[in-house]
């Protein structure tokens, strides 16, 4: 009887060890088969180069015409200021025109 119980305990121990080994193996195999994929490093978004894009193209034509008109008025005012007191500084004074700034 004692012998039977000893054998039973040994069998159960072997069985438990086998189950533990199988579980361990399964766990480690799963890790090998599915390696963690590294996500590509996210690059900071850089606007596409626009070397050949004329910025004035972005402005609606009505707005562009208003800019031209405003430019003419400002230039005329600057020229009138020069004529009032002619000197080089006034002749080349800067205006706030969007077309030249």
């Amino acid at each position, binding site marked *: 009887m004692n012998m039977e119980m000893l054998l039973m305990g040994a069998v159960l121990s072997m069985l438990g060890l086998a189950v533990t080994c199988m579980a361990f193996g399964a766990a480690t195999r799963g890790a090998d088969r599915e390696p963690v994929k590294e996500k590509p490093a996210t690059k900071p978004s850089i606007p596409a180069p626009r070397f050949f894009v004329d910025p004035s*193209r972005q402005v609606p*034509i009505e707005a*562009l*015409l208003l800019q*031209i*008109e405003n430019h*003419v*008025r400002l*230039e*005329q005012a*600057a*020229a*009138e200021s*020069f*004529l009032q007191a002619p000197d080089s500084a006034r*002749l*080349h004074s800067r205006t706030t025109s969007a077309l*030249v700034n």
Partner: protein
Amino acid sequence: MINADLLQSLDPSEAERVLALGRRMVLTSGAELFHLGDAADCIYLVDRGRIRLTLPMQVRSREEDVLVEERSSGQTVGWSALIPPYRFTLTARAPLETEVIALPREALDEYFAAHPATGYAVSLNLSSVIGQRLQLFQAMWLREVQRMVELRCA
């Protein structure tokens, strides 16, 4: 209206006689007074309102009338009528209801032939109007050339 730039230094009665040679015209908002290239038979004095003087310009492959100058009450427009070859070199349009006095060249020529002192005074005034325009656009032109040079040499 006797204070118009073209009539400066004339005594009021003489200025009235010159004005009597003309006819009043009321332009509704947006109406064209004359067009680039038209025969120029009349010179105009702006009595009230405004006149926009424009030139055609290519903007994105479209021809647009671009403001060159604006004239208001007391100022003269259309002096091409007194300068050969008597063709308008700008287009004139009223941006709001505007009243002008149209003085025909023929009537002025006849009157000035009979009244040379008045003709001389008006000619001096006209020279002044033209001279101011020339100086103004000379300065504007040079400013644009300066910018072009800066851009090319940048």
